[in-house]
């Protein structure tokens, strides 16, 4: 009976497997402890009473989901800012490498390169501003106990800002990729290609990480809203 109850609580948290596993173990241990301490009745009655005292599994699952969502949003907010810093470092490394190796842009592609460079800078600045605003949106204040409308609005604002930051970052990384292709085209492949290629790979990985995190947090928010609705 206790296992079935803990399982039903964990099933409501299936969108976060590690949380569900932890909650199942913890709740099961608690209920077993309560039953062991209850010497007044037969074990089945004690189990029934322990479960009844514990409460509706869906309501408790919702409270866990809200608490977990608060921590996750803070982590995602911080991750986005760190990832943007990582992309900036990769860009700076590549540009420094071009300067050191005096790797010039082909004259024919210079105007296109300058346009792409402008878009890149604007998109990156947009990503920085949106990412920092998103982080500030969830970085302060304790997670509320209930999934009230004001918290829901704050989460929606956070998701919007994160999506804008991801959009800016992806646009910036695409521009960087095109600029790298322009810079490398016409040269014979050598070891010197490694720095621009690796820095581009890092940028693409960073942008993908941001997109994955945002998708995950959007899914968690929807699942939590469904649990509390």
């Amino acid at each position, binding site marked *: 009976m206790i296992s079935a109850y803990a399982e039903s609580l964990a099933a409501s948290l299936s969108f976060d497997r590690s949380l569900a596993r932890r909650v199942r173990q*913890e709740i099961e241990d608690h209920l077993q402890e309560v039953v062991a301490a209850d010497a007044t009745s037969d074990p089945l009655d004690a189990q029934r009473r322990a479960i009844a005292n514990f409460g509706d599994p869906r309501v408790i699952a919702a409270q866990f989901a809200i608490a977990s969502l608060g921590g996750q949003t803070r982590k995602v907010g911080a991750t986005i800012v760190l990832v943007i810093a990582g992309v900036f470092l990769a860009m700076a490394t590549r540009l420094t490498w071009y300067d050191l190796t005096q790797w010039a842009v082909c004259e024919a592609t210079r105007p296109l390169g300058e346009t792409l460079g402008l878009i890149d800078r604007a998109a990156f600045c947009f990503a920085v501003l949106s990412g920092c605003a998103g982080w500030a949106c969830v970085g302060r204040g304790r997670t509320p106990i209930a999934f009230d409308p004001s918290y829901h609005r704050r989460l929606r604002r956070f998701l919007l800002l994160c999506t804008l930051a991801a959009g800016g970052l992806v646009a910036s990384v695409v521009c960087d990729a095109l600029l790298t292709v322009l810079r490398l085209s016409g040269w014979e492949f050598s070891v010197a290609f490694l720095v621009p290629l690796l820095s581009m790979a890092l940028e693409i990985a960073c942008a993908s990480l941001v997109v994955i995190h945002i998708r995950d947090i959007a899914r968690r928010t929807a699942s939590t809203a469904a649990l509390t609705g």
Partner: protein
Amino acid sequence: MEGEMLKGHLDMIVLAALAAGPAHGYAVIEEVKRRSGQRFDLPEGTVYPVLHRLEQAGLLVSRWVTAESGRRRRIYALTKRGGSELAGQREVWEQFSAAIDGLLGGARPRRTSA
């Protein structure tokens, strides 16, 4: 004790119960009952999400241990930040309590420098 009144102070109550030392959820509930003279009978299911939320906020840390029964058990402990938070909440509570005492007793509330 009114349930809603208790719910509004759950964070402080749980932090205070853990001030005595690390404990698992069941022990926290028992400690609250004991120290409140059985007046605070916390709704058991709501204590665990509170522990989880306080941990997410950095006020508690937790780890798994194996109990004598062989079951895995999550033990919670106050962090330094959790201790400061509890001290802050205690101060606010004492000021509030003094003001209410003054109000109910008909005396002027004591002014504080906060």
